[in-house]
């Protein structure tokens, strides 16, 4: 589903964020992306969501090379990738419902369809009763779950998460991860960047480890 081929990214100024990264994430797989801060996790996610372009190498999603995606096509590619941010990035001016509805409004869905899907997504994260609340009135865990609802509301085939449990206590973290597992069981490919090694250890999933820009450990790489 997501395939990196010798991908390097050098920022202007010569900083090498990632270097010659190779991996292949199968469709329907859930994987962790780990490494110290500064190891290149964010850069890798940015490359997938087309916020950055690789300096060398090629990234394929579902067999389509991202190098061939034009600037004008980027919004449409992003509609296929749900992204969950560490700091939620909810819009304070809008209520929970409108925040979650945003991707659907952008895609031009009908009002009825939007209501149905947003209710479904909020129900899944257990926040249906807070649909009319504003983000600032919610707790950190609740805000994160709103962010997750927004990322999955249009059922994207790929889900990226950057430190989704970064600010949460362990109990909440497990809860959030269970949500990801649930989406994964419905066929979504999930890639979670985290440095919470304890969390990873508890779950039997593949993990990609970055160290100063290079992938050091991908046990499944040889089998693929």
């Amino acid at each position, binding site marked *: 589903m997501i395939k990196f081929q010798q991908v390097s990214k050098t920022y202007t100024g010569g900083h090498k964020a990632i270097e010659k990264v190779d991996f292949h994430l199968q469709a329907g797989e859930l994987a962790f992306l780990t490494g110290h801060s500064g190891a290149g996790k964010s850069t890798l996610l*940015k490359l997938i969501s087309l916020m950055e372009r690789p300096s060398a190498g090629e990234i394929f999603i*579902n067999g389509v090379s991202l190098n061939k995606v034009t600037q004008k096509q980027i919004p449409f590619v992003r509609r296929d990738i749900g992204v969950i941010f560490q700091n939620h990035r909810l819009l304070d001016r809008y209520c929970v419902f409108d925040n979650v509805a*945003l*991707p659907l409004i952008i895609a031009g869905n009908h009002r009825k369809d939007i209501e149905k*899907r947003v209710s479904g997504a909020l129900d899944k994260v257990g926040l249906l009763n807070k649909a009319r609340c504003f983000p600032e009135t919610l707790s950190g865990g609740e805000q994160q779950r709103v962010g997750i609802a*927004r990322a999955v509301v249009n059922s994207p*085939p790929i889900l990226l998460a950057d430190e989704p449990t970064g600010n949460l206590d362990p109990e909440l973290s497990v809860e959030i991860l269970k949500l990801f597992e649930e989406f994964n069981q419905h066929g979504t490919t999930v890639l979670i960047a985290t440095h919470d090694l304890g969390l990873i250890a508890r779950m039997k999933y593949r993990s990609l480890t970055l160290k100063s820009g290079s992938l050091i450990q991908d046990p499944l790489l040889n089998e693929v």
Partner: protein
Amino acid sequence: MSILFKGRKSQADNMSRTPLLAAYFTIMNILRQGVQSLGELWRTPMASLMTIAVLGLSLTLPTTLYVVVKNVQKVSSGFDNAAEISLFLKEDVDEQQAQRVIKRISLYNEVKSVSFINKTQALEEFKLASGFGEALNYLDKNPLPSVVLVTPNAGFSGPQTAQNLLAKLEKEREVDFGKLDIEWLERLNSLLSLLKESVITIGILLLSSVILIIGNTIRLSIMDKKQEIQLMKLVGATNHFIQTPFLWTGIWYGIVGGFIAFLSVLLMIFWLDSAVANVVGVYHASFTLEGLNFSEFLVLLSLAISLGLFGSYLSVKRYIDAIEPNEI
């Protein structure tokens, strides 16, 4: 339409759409964004009020000048064809000779009508009009000449043709000299065209400053919403989608500003009307100030709207493309 996943249809095009239906939905979407942006203006009126006021008042000045030109033109058009020629008869011409010359002149092709004011009448009129009154009784004899007033035909009342007619009439034996009061009209006309030119110049200057002011206001509101724009881009919003509400803001600025300009002009006319009535009353004439009619109002409004739209377009084009999400 999905680029990465050929089989995956975005929910928006679940139904098979004809191009006509798609266009309908696009238009409905744009209109919906328009209503939303109006709602936003309504919620934060103070931020926009100043810009709208600037737009409105900047449009008021050229509009007022336009109304002034229009009214002066209305006044002067009343004089345009009144190129009346006064022929002063020689002092020794008596009543009979005068009647003969009147008859002769009235036979001219160029002449429409002729009237006669004899010496005595002229003196009476002068007594009334000048205010010298009884003092004039002390004169030994009537110093005023008899006057023949000639109104030329429509074709000969223009400045040049009337001048030619005057030269012809002055050759009559009994006529001392003639006078054509047309120079002031030419002066008025040239003043009027100067005024029109200045309306255009001042208008252009003010309107370009309006464009810049609106552009700047929209730029600030774009910068204010930078986070929001970045997030919208991250969840797949096209530049068009993000731009539309800002363009609508410009349009609403234009609509409200246009109304402000219209109301200010209306108010000003209402204010000036009584003053004008006073002035006109002194001259024993009747004249009412003419405001903007409906089509002129529409022109004003659409001018305001296009200024708002253009100003916001400049900012939107420049800044929204430049804002890209840079952190995940």
